[in-house]
């Protein structure tokens, strides 16, 4: 569908034009690798089954997808404030097509960023995935991107203004990151936090990435903690639920339409 392609193409054009965003998205995981990696590696120094930086790699890729996809999808808020969303709403396409286009653009942006970062990061930590591992990793990245992109559109459709971004960062992005298994195994969390972690789409994405990249350490307890099919099913479910909710939020007049066309008093 040409309209979806148009929305996706615009996401890429905008991303590449914002140099700061490109630098941040590529550089962010390496900042974490250096600083968080150095600190945690010290804490884990007594255990030599795995270098902590290697353990972090799947989580960092998950983080790249999360920031890439979620932030791209949240740009729907900016589109609304700048008026561009209205151009999309007056086009002869369904609201669900707009939601799908935004989510898909976010997915592909997150995926592209993760692939670029993987190409730089994996050699640095001396991780050489098998072909099967690389393919599974790609599946993990795409599915996570779709689930998080859909979530981002849902959030964007519910957020009133750009100022609420900070709230999203504090109460969505960071908890999601810490409860994803990116930095430590989810199994080490208490039962309550573990339950919360399993409501977190990123947790399944990171778990799948661990299956893909840390297979060699699975025996030592550092690989994926859940079965691969369960991870895939959970991510698909999040993606489908997110897209459905996003489409209905964009479709109802009280959602984006009202805020996009609010009557000035």
């Amino acid at each position, binding site marked *: 569908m040409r309209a979806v392609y*148009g929305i996706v193409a*615009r996401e890429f054009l905008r991303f590449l034009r914002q140099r700061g965003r490109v630098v941040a998205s590529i550089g962010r995981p390496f900042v974490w690798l250096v600083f968080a990696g150095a600190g945690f590696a010290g804490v884990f120094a007594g255990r030599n089954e795995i270098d902590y930086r290697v353990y972090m790699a799947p989580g960092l890729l998950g983080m790249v997808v999360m920031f890439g996809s979620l932030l791209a999808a949240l740009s729907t808020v900016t589109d609304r404030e700048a*008026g561009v969303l209205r*151009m*999309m709403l007056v086009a*002869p*396409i369904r609201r669900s097509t707009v939601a799908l286009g935004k989510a898909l653009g976010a997915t592909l942006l997150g995926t592209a960023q993760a692939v670029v970062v993987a190409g730089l990061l994996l050699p640095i930590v001396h991780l050489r995935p098998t072909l099967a591992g690389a393919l599974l990793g790609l599946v993990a990245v795409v599915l996570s991107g779709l689930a998080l992109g859909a979530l981002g559109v849902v959030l964007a459709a519910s957020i009133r203004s750009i100022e609420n971004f900070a709230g999203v960062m504090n109460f969505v992005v960071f908890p999601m990151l810490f409860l994803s298994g990116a930095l430590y195994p989810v199994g080490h969390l208490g039962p309550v936090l573990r339950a919360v972690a399993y409501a977190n789409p990123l947790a399944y994405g990171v778990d799948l990435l661990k299956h893909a990249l840390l297979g060699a350490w699975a025996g030592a307890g550092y690989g994926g903690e859940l079965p691969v099919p369960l991870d895939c099913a959970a991510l698909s479910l999040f993606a489908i639920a997110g897209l459905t909710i996003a489409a209905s939020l964009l479709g109802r007049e009280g959602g984006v339409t009202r805020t996009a*066309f609010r*009557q000035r008093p």
Partner: protein
Amino acid sequence: MTAAAIDARGLGKDFGALRALDRLDLEVGDGEFFGLLGPNGAGKTTTVHLLATLLAPSRGTARVAGHDVVEEGLAVRRGIGLVFQDTTLDRDLTVAENLRFAARLWSLPERVSRSRIDALLRQFDLLERRDDPVRALSGGMRRAADIARGILHEPRILFLDEPTAGLDPRARRSLWDRIRGLRAASRLTVLLTTHYVEEAEPCDRVAVLDHGRLVALGTPAELKQAAGVDSLEEVFLAHTGHPLTEADGA
């Protein structure tokens, strides 16, 4: 009998307790240049958004470009172009990229859109600026690009919502030349909203709105004659008891 371009029956919209548009009966003929005149808050933009399927009516019905605005939203949107009060262009993209984006949203084949975009850029004097980001353009040029975006898919009806708001007199004049040129070149139906009487003057017919109600409808000459006055400004005063400009911003 040819179907009217716009046919609204008892069309109305409430926002909570606010009755933005009461019950509007309106018929706009094919190829007509129609003006909606009224102060800010009279319900002009609400009317346009209802007719463009961006808002759902609280009551009444409307057919636009031969289709029902509630039942056939996609078909209505295919037949109309809409230039919003504030620009809807992506300021970070170039003029050409914005038009290409719109062409894809309207599912125009790449081959058709390329030649059409070139022609529109030439027609709107934007050829030299085609690769400049929109944020670098003057208000008048942005407006021209907005209108080019609005007619890219060759709609039957063009809605212009306060198209000259925020433009200097020169940009305003050149905009009117463009709209005149467009109408001369095609049988485009144009529905214009404005709170400037001089902009309603060249319209074939004018509907005067105030507080969500239609208070007068006719050709500018008829309206003036019926009210026994010399200007549309006085027509508004005669029908509402308050001047058009003073109600501004109320």
